[in-house]
């Protein structure tokens, strides 16, 4: 199974990183271990690098558990949130972020929807203006179009007006 193989590869890589880091003096000095909540607060903003579309804080795989341990380790070394996220981006690519980074072509992700919506609004506005010009419809058609509009309810509403 290619996925399992890939997972194993990452796990081994992670193991190597972890052992190197554990051996470093910085870890030995760490005194107040970070809580699970502090770890999750950062993991929540990251995506599992191997299983697609799963946030790292809820990913059940063994690999992800080790990545969370890595976050814990980096926190205990006094690294900040931005630094840890950058570490993951450097090692696993921009896909670990929950949104495309705001740079280069990725700006398209943020610009296209508002532009498309504005274009849609413009079209609707134009259509409304065009419809407001009375030239197109003949009077006969118009009254016919008005008449069937919910006549029962129209009567009801008239009734309400009369009674009030």
């Amino acid at each position: 199974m290619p996925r399992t193989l890939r997972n194993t590869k990452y796990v081994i890589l992670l193991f190597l990183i972890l052992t190197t880091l554990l051996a470093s003096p910085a870890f030995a000095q760490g005194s107040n271990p970070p809580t699970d909540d502090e770890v999750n607060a950062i993991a929540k903003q990251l995506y599992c690098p191997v299983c697609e579309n799963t946030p790292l804080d809820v990913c059940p795989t063994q690999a992800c558990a080790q990545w969370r341990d890595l976050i814990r380790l980096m926190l205990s070394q006094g690294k900040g949130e931005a630094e840890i996220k950058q570490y993951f981006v450097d090692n696993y690519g921009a896909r670990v972020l929950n949104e495309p980074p705001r740079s280069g072509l990725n700006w398209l992700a943020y610009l296209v929807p508002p532009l498309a919506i504005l274009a849609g609004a413009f079209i609707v506005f134009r259509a409304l203006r065009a419809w407001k010009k009375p030239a197109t419809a003949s009077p006969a058609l118009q009254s016919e179009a008005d008449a069937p509009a919910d006549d029962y309810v129209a009567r009801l509403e008239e009734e309400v007006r009369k009674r009030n």
Partner: protein
Amino acid sequence: MLAQFGYGILLITFLLSLYAIAAAVHGYFTQSTRAIESARRSMLLTFPLISLAAASLILLLVQGDYNVQFVYEVTSRSMPTYLKITAWWGGQAGSLLFWSWLMSAFATAATLRKWDRDIEFLPWVIVVASVTLAFFLALNILFEDPFARLYQTFDGSIAAYQFAPAGATPVVPADGRGLNPLLRHPGMIIHPPLLYLGFVSYVIPFAFAIAALITGRTDDRWIRLTRRWSLWAWLFLSFGLVLGGRWAYDVLGWGGYWGWDPVEIAAFMPWLTGTAFLHSVMIQEKRGMLKQWNMVLIILTYALVIFGTFLTRSGVLSSVHAFAQSAIGPSFFVFIGATFVTSIALLLHRWNDLRAEAEMKSLLSREALFLLNNLLFMSVLVVCFWGVIFPLISELFTGQKVTVGPPFYERANSPLFAALMLLMGIAPLSAWGHSTMQTLGRALWKPAIAAGLGTVAIYFTYTTHIIALIGFFLVFFVILVTLYEFWRGARARQRAQNEHFFTALSRLTGRNRRRYGGYIIHISMMLMAIGILGIELFQSETQGTVQVGESLNLQHYQLVYEDIARFTGPDGREVTRAVIQVYKDGQPVAELHPRTDYYWEAQQNMTIPGVRSTLADDVYVLLVDWEPASAIGATFKVYVNPLVNWLWLGSFLFLAGVVVAAWPDKDPESVTARARARGARQISAAD
């Protein structure tokens, strides 16, 4: 034998649907009623045939014929019979067959109706339904054969074939791999069929729309004919979405119900166009406007239905939901492209015949507000569509993989949803044709002030969060406006008819089902909005490792870890179950049993939460980690999800609303006529 039989039936059905297409087209152009009748009968025959193929597959699944690859992949000996049956849609090949089966059932239902007045539509409805059916059958026949059997060839490799290479020996594994554990949940047994029902039923209105375009019958007949189809399609799709959310909440162990996953969005997109369609067809029926736009909407809905199936089935976007991946992507791509381009070409061909019959008199009229509603739905669609395909674009052009996750969608869609809610409050009070600021203002000020007072109460008692307050204001506003509409109608009837208020209310609703069913749906949406506001804005969580007797604290709750046990379940899964006592402000309120189930055959772990659910909030506990040998205790993750229950409550009301709106009349036209006559009599009697 059964497998070959099933495959043979699929082949015959495929050929039959091709014949139906040819006969219908021929019949239309040569005005041959005989050819059209022959096409209709072929169409009708596809349903019993596919049912036979499906029955063969189910029999294979239940018997456990593991020589058949699909059976081997989705069932195992230890699975109960009902799961063996529902495993039909638990894998790719089977679910495509399921799609075809539903398609032929719906096409049959559509072809069986009385056609007297609309006989010119018939050949093209048959063509569209048969083209769609033939495409899905072809996928089964060519790429995803549910009846392929396992063989070992000379070089020792094992593969599945329908027509085994010479000298290959059949392989019969002793046991199957079993259904993906994630799919063994009641929610997951009903969720895919409902979603598929929704998907497939949208093919019928689309078929009528195309028939209208081809025949040049550009009045609103096609809309009136398919009104109920669209409503039922929308019901199934909506309920499929809700059930999917419930399944995620119960099984995926995320503490949530919706993660803006591409596959969730794939099902959400046709819902968006379908909802816009439901609203905008009313403008065409009542005012003769937006004919072109309604065509665009139904064409888009059909394209998105196929696209939705494509996303879940092709493996183009792999995500947690994309259980099945295969090489059928290009076929889907070509099919969507071809049908979309053809439909749009037909629409452009008829563009001038579909001009509006009336003018827009006021920007505050109901039709103008409906247009705005459509713009908003389309805007949400743009955000969703772009979010789903942007990672592909990025990978294609820069080679960089990116994720578009919840923050993107939430930031863009929240204001759009808020605007939709505001419209939901205003539109019911605006009139068709013309409304002015004055008339609208007169109708709106009372509910607006009442909603404002409600929001002030929330400010002092519940939250000062500004987005939540805006949200609650809109919820109150819409509910009050809608209830006011019920009250106004019922009061008028009560006075006119001298009826009891509740009799008047139920008769009012019964006689204007679409309107008042729609209002019930609006209220249900607001209940769901309460749940969404609660969990999105106020969810809190904590995680910790504790020993037996120790506790975790979150909000008002204290969760004491009392016990843990590991045992083997009846189907061979290994269950690790913890016992948690929940105290609220010191009082014991519940005992929860979060657990993990490990499935050996699938080598997969499931994390099942323990949940205490009330209208105020849910306490949702997950057992994250525990090893029998370790002395460090067990790790739990706890969520408090405020108000989330309103989401599920709202969905029940929603169901009621759609049933009210879509309940079949004996004969729609005569009933409407009778109602009109009765209405006239009532009014004149009251005078």
